[in-house]
């Protein structure tokens, strides 16, 4: 091994899968070998079996659908407002000077700490869940988009001006397309964070969703179900991440060049 030396594509997949094998191996060893009590940690087979029961008999699919809907709903609302505001902040410095200090402050407010307040305001319905996701992702999105747009190469801006571009044209034809791949990356990352907020939102005051199933299982000491729920979240996260990456590659082939 030498530093920064790339790994062959085949070896990369083998290595990636190998760690999952090691992980499940260690887990099996600890549980089947009787080193940990079943009460605290279920073994992999029990986990899969109860997962199957959850899906086929206990309507867990509806919970999953609910959670996905909440994440996407809250995230899409946040993105729809964050995109124009972030671009405006990146392009126009007075706009940035107006919003940036507040947004920088607001993004450190933990979304989960708002849950009691949001329950007071919006009840325990869907609006409250969406609001948690929104608070968790909106401020980060705005700030990261503004920075990306503001970092547009100045020589490209100057070149565009010498080609006769107007200020509006500059935003539409240089700032936005130049920042687009990085903004797409930001969306992908923040969607990942949104997943962690939704579970917290569902742990308190929810009657459906993956988080709700996990709290229910805790009361029954059903660690197998809790672990299954966590793994489902991980798998959905991984799938959405891969999908996002694939879409970005399709949309911005030029950004992949020379990497």
């Amino acid at each position, binding site marked *: 091994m030498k530093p920064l030396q790339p790994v062959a594509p085949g070896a990369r997949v083998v290595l990636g899968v190998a760690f999952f094998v090691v992980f499940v191996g260690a887990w099996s060893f600890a549980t089947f070998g009787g080193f940990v009590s079943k009460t605290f940690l279920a073994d992999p087979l029990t986990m899969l079996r109860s997962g199957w029961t959850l899906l086929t008999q206990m309507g867990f699919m509806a919970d999953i659908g609910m959670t996905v809907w909440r994440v996407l709903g809250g995230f899409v609302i946040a993105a729809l407002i964050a995109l124009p505001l972030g671009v405006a902040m990146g392009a126009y410095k007075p706009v940035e000077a107006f919003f940036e200090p507040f947004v920088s402050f607001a993004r450190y407010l933990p979304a989960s700490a708002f849950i009691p307040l949001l329950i007071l305001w919006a009840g325990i319905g869907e609006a409250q869940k969406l609001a948690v996701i929104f608070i968790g992702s909106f401020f980060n999105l705005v700030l990261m988009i503004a920075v990306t747009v503001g970092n547009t190469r100045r*020589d490209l801006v100057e070149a*565009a*001006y*010498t*080609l*006769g571009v107007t200020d509006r044209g500059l935003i539409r*034809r240089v700032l936005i*397309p130049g920042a687009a791949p990085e903004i797409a990356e930001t969306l992908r990352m923040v969607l990942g964070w949104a997943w962690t907020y939704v579970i917290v939102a569902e742990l308190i005051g929810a009657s459906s969703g993956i988080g709700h199933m996990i709290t229910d299982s805790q009361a029954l000491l059903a660690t197998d179900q809790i672990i299954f729920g966590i793994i489902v979240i991980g798998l959905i996260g991984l799938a959405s991440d891969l999908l996002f990456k694939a879409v970005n590659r399709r949309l*911005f082939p030029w950004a992949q060049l020379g990497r």
Partner: protein
Amino acid sequence: MTASTILRIRGVAKRFRSNLGETLALQATDLDVAENDFITILGPSGCGKSTLLRIVAGLEVQSAGDVQLDGRRIVGPGADRGMVFQSYTLFPWLTVRENVCFGLRERRLPRAEQLEVAEGYLAKVGLQGFADHYPKQLSGGMQQRTALARALANKPRMLLMDEPFGALDHQTRELMQELLLGIWEAERTTVLFVTHDIDEAVFMGSRVVVMSARPGRIKVDRPVALPHPRHYSMKTTPVFSALKAELTEAVRAEVLAAQQQSQAGSPLAPAGAATEASP
């Protein structure tokens, strides 16, 4: 040159402010550029030649003086002054063809016309086969050829070039010089070309201007008495050599002056003030 003056630079000066105080980068400079002229500007680095060009482009605002293009005062950048930069400034998200169409699209030219113009200029710079490539798939020389096509496609009144071949290797640079000269001989677009390469300045220019060390001002202004079309073999003719020798002397004196200035201003210079201050 019987043609009329299109660019008139009068008393243009530029001061830069920094936390160390004020520096005069360019002192009151006058320059007239005639239609169809190819003026090359030589000078030591930091003499303000790029600053002068950027003021003409409208990318920088002068501290004093006036620049007029066709009798109208320049207040900002515009499509009438195309520019080719030293850094690679093609838009990486656009193909070569769309880069060349950039200014045409801004002017809302019909799409068919855009493509026709782009096709023509890509042919002139020898890149017909690369229209669908992205800039990152091209070599540095090809990127600068595209940038040249992009600037020319806009049909500017003037072409401003800020050491456009400075980042290229020697062989590529010589080929680029011939390419640009060939295009200029055919189109006669007025060019203002900044460089620190004396061979380049003499070979390309119909007039060579030498600027002094900071604060910059015009020190030498010579017509180049070489006929067009120019062939690279002209670089070995007596006329070329004589002018090159004269300009080399002029630039050398300024480079030396610039070095002395920077040594005098550096903290390593012997400081007599400290001993005087002590009792």
